[in-house]
């Protein structure tokens, strides 16, 4: 039980609950709360010794945020 695993589990729990039930129920709050869960999952990945997995996960999180922003922007114009 490394400290990264415990901290990542706490942050992943906070992020999952707050992304499932956002307080003002808008898409922007949900998109920001997903980032908390991504940080918690990255800390859990840090507990195991795989550096390439963390690198790929961080890059994919950035790209998926870009894709979600593009989709939401196009959808809100219509």
């Amino acid at each position, binding site marked *: 039980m490394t400290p990264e695993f415990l901290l990542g589990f706490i942050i992943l729990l906070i992020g999952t609950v707050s992304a499932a039930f956002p307080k003002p129920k808008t898409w922007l709050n949900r998109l920001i709360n997903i980032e*908390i869960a991504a940080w918690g999952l990255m800390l859990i990945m840090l507990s195991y010794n795989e550096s390439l997995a963390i690198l790929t996960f961080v890059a994919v999180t950035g790209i998926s945020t870009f894709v979600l922003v593009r989709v939401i922007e196009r959808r809100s114009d219509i």
Partner: protein
Amino acid sequence: MTDLILIIFGLIAVIGGLATAINKDPFDKLISLGILAGGAIPFIVNRGYMDVAIAVALTVPVTTIFILLICRREIT
């Protein structure tokens, strides 16, 4: 000594996560997300993955600026 500073950084990360979940204004949420990133990056450095830490520290502002593109449209 090393354990005490890890407890401090963990406290900063948990405070940032709770503040991100509780705040209602999108700009306050992004500021609290910066606190969460600042608390989490020293754990990567302490583990010894310096190249991963460089990549994470350069990827986080790009993600924040992507979210700011629709925050401005939301306010106006």
